């Protein structure tokens, strides 16, 4: 009997061996934390900048000893505070390893690298070839030619970015963001974002347009028309509906779609064409010169905004999103731009 029981126990033990981690986790759980909800405020472009601003307010309030000196914050972080003598910054090898707090307006010399955050309480201008980990401007912030930002940049005033700059992470302004030529960035948010001079959407005159006759195969689905295959809307045409097109959609010059449009393939807006609602495509979205979209402009592949093309409006913020986004001169977005692989001005 005993040998049998022994063999049975051995067999059972052998069988349970692979289940040991499972039994251990069952009896002494190590991982019972539920999945946390993604805090969507993290998704706000200015989230990191706002956090930094709160941190600075907490550890170094404005009224606490202005002047030119270096010290340590309460958490041990080294900082340098500058009111007049900006030459003390990046004095060794053009690299500044401390947090920088600027209390007065400054124009920083170029070819410098700031390894920690820069916080400017007054207007700040940086020279060419400046590298920032992150920079916050309470007033206007002007980045010179070929500047680089690695995490975020935010200004409460206008944020102006010089040509050939590379802005990783989040770029935002409470007032407006003006981009120079050949600027590369990932996410930008501001009441108005413009490559060069900002534009307002040009609205075709409804009275001068011919009313569109939908193709016979168009099918009414709820509040929109569904068209199977490709669709070309002639120029100077009024489309008083929302459209879903299962192929490619081309909207002719000067035409106006009063609703929203969705194309399963490429979506093209010719010169001065306007979609009053959203323009959404499973492929590429191209806005020609002076074309405009009143609502969201989303593409699952790329977005190309031609000269003076506009998305959103001063009273109607909107998002532009795509894998890659290109902006021509005068292209203006009232709201937010998100490009997973990067956006650039041409």
């Amino acid at each position, binding site marked *: 009997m005993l040998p049998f029981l022994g063999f049975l126990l051995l067999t059972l033990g052998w069988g349970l061996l692979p289940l040991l981690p499972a039994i251990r986790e069952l009896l002494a759980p190590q991982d019972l934390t539920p999945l946390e909800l993604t805090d969507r405020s993290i998704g706000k472009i200015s989230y990191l900048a706002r956090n930094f601003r709160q941190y600075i307010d907490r550890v170094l309030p404005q009224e606490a000893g202005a002047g030119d000196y270096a010290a340590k914050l309460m958490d041990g972080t080294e900082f340098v505070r500058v009111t007049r003598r900006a030459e003390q910054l990046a004095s060794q090898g053009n690299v500044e390893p401390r947090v920088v707090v600027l209390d007065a307006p400054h124009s920083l010399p170029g070819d410098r690298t700031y390894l920690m955050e820069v916080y400017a309480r007054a207007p700040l201008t940086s020279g060419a070839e400046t590298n920032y980990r992150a920079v916050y401007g309470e007033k206007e912030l002007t980045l010179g030619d070929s500047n680089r930002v690695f995490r975020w940049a935010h200004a409460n005033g206008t944020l102006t970015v010089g040509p050939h700059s590379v802005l990783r992470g989040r770029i935002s302004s409470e007032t407006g963001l003006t981009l120079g030529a050949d600027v590369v960035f990932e996410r930008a948010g501001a009441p108005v974002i413009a490559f060069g001079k900002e534009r307002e959407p040009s609205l075709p005159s409804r009275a001068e347009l011919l009313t569109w006759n939908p193709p016979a195969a168009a099918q009414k689905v709820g509040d929109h028309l569904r068209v199977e295959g490709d669709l070309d809307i002639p120029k100077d045409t009024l489309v008083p509906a929302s459209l*879903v097109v299962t192929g490619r959609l081309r909207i002719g010059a000067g035409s106006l779609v009063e609703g929203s449009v969705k194309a399963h393939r490429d979506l093209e807006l010719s010169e001065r064409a306007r979609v009053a*609602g959203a323009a959404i495509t499973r492929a590429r979205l191209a806005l020609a010169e002076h074309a405009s979209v009143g609502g969201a402009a989303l593409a699952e592949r790329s977005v190309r905004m031609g000269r003076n093309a506009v998305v959103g409006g001063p009273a109607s913020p909107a998002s532009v999103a795509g894998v890659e986004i290109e902006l021509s001169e005068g292209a203006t977005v009232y709201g937010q731009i998100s490009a997973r692989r990067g956006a650039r001005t041409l």
Partner: protein
Amino acid sequence: MTIFGAILLPVLAIVAVVTIRHYRLILNRLFGAHRQPYLDLSTATWPRATVFIPCRDEKQIGPLMVALLASDYPEGLLTLVPIVDPAFPAAAKVLDDYAVRFPGKVVPFHRARSEGGRGGALREASEHAPGREAPVHLVFDGAYRPGRGLIKQLVAPFFDPEVGGAFSRIVPATIGPILLPRLLDLAGSEASQIGQQARTNLDQTPEVTAPVMGLRRAALEAAGGWSGETEAETLELGYRLAAGGWAIAYQNRAECHEVTSGAWAAYQEEAGRAARGRIQALLRHRGRAGFDALLRLARPLVAVVLILGWLVALAGSYAGDPFAVVSLAVLTIVLFSPLGSLVGFAATAAAARLDGHRARVRILPFQALAGLASTWLAAREALAQLLAKRRKPARQPTRAVAAENRVA
């Protein structure tokens, strides 16, 4: 071929189809490109939206109202319409208090009679309640706790004119140390990370399985509104929307917490309701749903087939039928194996990896128990539903519960 072979061959074929289909989803999710087209849409001119909340439990409704009132949706554009059931006066009192404290924002809709379960309540409210004219309708059941940004995330897909319905990922709010809620947590990860997201990637219609969703009002009206004749009203409505040419958007990065008791009885009721709802939807949509949709709706019937397969294979192996012996081995592997099966070990492991879970995935072998239980429950409810054909929604309050509430 013997009688055992004649029965087991189709069983094995069905199991093979389900396994291949499951693997396709797993591989897509692990290695394919992900579609999240509305993820970056966070700045917009937001439309008016009305949240309909079917209410029964006054203990649940308070935390949900607090969560909804904390939403970052623009002030003045969101109306909360709790649907007050006459059988639950305690909940009605709580909601009337909210209406006084938040005038214009919380507008309870008092039903005259309790009919048609949750679907019936939603149908009545979406047709008659204040706020019904909003272009976007949202639905939250009492057991759910949305985060601050969830309303925006559920509304964002409706800028796409093709989208008729949108829904978020559901995650448990708490996970107790007992086995069942932990297994359900893993199963939920699998359903969201693999099932729903992979279907979105593959252009298949994701399934709205939880009573949390957004709807375009025009789509709801075009599809004929809510149905009070099914126990899985969001699932059934999702299939009707898809059949009408509307897209259903799944927002994998928009999570909503669910409060579950973790008790076996509650799980049994929920699993039974889901199985019956599937069969009801299958009977209604069998003529127009595609192959993949039919396979998903017929999941409870696949459970019946699987149990039949096990029994026949067992009997055949005792009778000395060689095919039955092989089949028994195959079906045993299907039950307990990382090869992929109804139990979905491979899918669950992949989902746990995608969610970044480490230690909790160690309890994966115990999922065989959950698989057995859910297979039995699904098969039992499927057969009962098929035999009964029509059955009143289980969510209807029983007389005892209603009387208890009146006393309270």
